[in-house]
């Protein structure tokens, strides 16, 4: 893979920038050019909005497979996180004992290395989630 593929997504993945439809107010992440609820009315009007990074576990799994680019961190926790702004995000939960992860657990987003394309390839960054401190 070449750099632009990851470079073009950097703002959204590093800073959790999504979009809001000004017609109905719904917030989307990842960003969208068209609001699925408002259709053409929303075209050209979608506004950028930054998520707080807060959220709760909506569902999760512990991945035990060999996965391309992730061998160094097996097993790992994958989750869908629901945010107070509305959108749900797919990401890993780290710095946690997999046994302690549960639906409803409060988490927040952190900036982390996601994967790398071999020894000489691009190191890819984005968000992961860690548990809130009790």
């Amino acid at each position, binding site marked *: 893979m070449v750099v632009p593929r990851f470079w073009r997504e950097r703002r959204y993945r590093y800073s959790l920038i999504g979009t809001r439809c000004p017609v109905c107010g719904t917030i989307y992440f990842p960003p969208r050019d068209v609001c699925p609820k408002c259709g053409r009315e929303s075209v050209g009007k979608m506004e950028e909005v930054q998520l707080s990074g807060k959220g709760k576990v909506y569902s999760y799994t512990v*991945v035990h*497979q060999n*996965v391309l680019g992730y061998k160094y961190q097996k097993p*790992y926790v*994958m989750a*869908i996180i629901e945010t107070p702004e509305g959108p749900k995000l797919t990401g890993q939960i780290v710095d946690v004992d997999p046994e302690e992860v549960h639906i409803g657990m409060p988490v927040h987003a952190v900036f982390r290395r996601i994967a790398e394309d071999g020894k000489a390839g691009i190191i890819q960054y984005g968000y992961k989630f860690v548990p809130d401190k009790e």
Partner: protein
Amino acid sequence: MRDVAIIGAGETKYGEHWDKSLRNLAVEAGLKAIEDANISAEDIQAIFGGNMSAGSFVGQDHVGALIADFAGLAELNVPAIRIESACASGAAALHAGYMAVASGLYDIVLVGGVEKMTDLPGDMVTDILAGAADREWEVFFGATFPALGAMMARRYMHEYGLTREQMALLPVIAHKHGAMNPDAHFQREVTVDQVLNAPMVADPLTVMNCSPVSDGGAALVLASADIARKYTDSPIKISASVAANDYISLHERESLTVSKSTVEAGKKAYKMAKKEPKDIDLAEIHDAFSIIALLGIEDLGFAKKGEGIKLAEEGQLYYDGDLPYNVSGGLKAKGHPVGATGVGQVVELVKQLRNEAGKRQVPDAKVGLAHNVGGTMTSSIIHIVEVM
């Protein structure tokens, strides 16, 4: 729109075909269907082929042209187009073939499906299959396809109290049927304990909750219903061919425990076929993961939400029960060569409706339903077929 009938059906055995290539599998299935339909090459006016990812699995695109060529049809210049909708590519090809004949554009077409998956190591196959989800916003962050299935299962367990023991009944039933299908990838029965104690892929799904990586091909010959009896005494009518879609990523959906694409396609299919769930004599339901089959059973109207597993507990899903489920063995035991699967489901229905299914024959089968999904139930394509 005119009525469309299936006049021929054929498929390869599903499994690890180390000695057969993509083209070998496609041609073998196609020739079997042509032989079964008792037609010759000159009768075929077009080919629609389902294939998810030959470009990634074996580095071959332009699959339609390749298959038509090696089926001996290049001299006849028969048009051949490859159709893709991830794991629903087979049903998508059948949908296209159905439209082509129903519209009157063609009188006889060949619909095929093929996938050659075992030429690559497992982690690469897993990565290619993940392309059925959102590569940039699910897969990038580490979500494999089984991980997405597992998150559907986890949420379902949370909302409806499903246990892993209950969910294990679905692969047990599929394997019971697969053991009676000489073309199935796995022809042996398994126990609940074997499912539960198999290696964990993505908690709560063990490898026995997941369909295998298989090679295989399947094919059907479609004809307009008015000429079908010229070729066969037992044509099977396609009473409904319906597709529907949902958000590609799981995280975008309001619920992980109902598939809106299956609900929508199901409603439209029953209406098109003038049937209700109780009229269905047997169903081939997409069981790439046990949880997807459970949602399929419920969202197709065979059980209320949260109660689908009761059908398994009561024994109704066996071939001699009230709702024979995946009597072919399903994706789990028959196998899941992704592009072939949707076509192969209907090949099984044709065998059953013609009373040619041997040991696993469903008594008095007249109406069958095939449910093929792409992605995490992102695309759902449903066919209802019946004796005519």
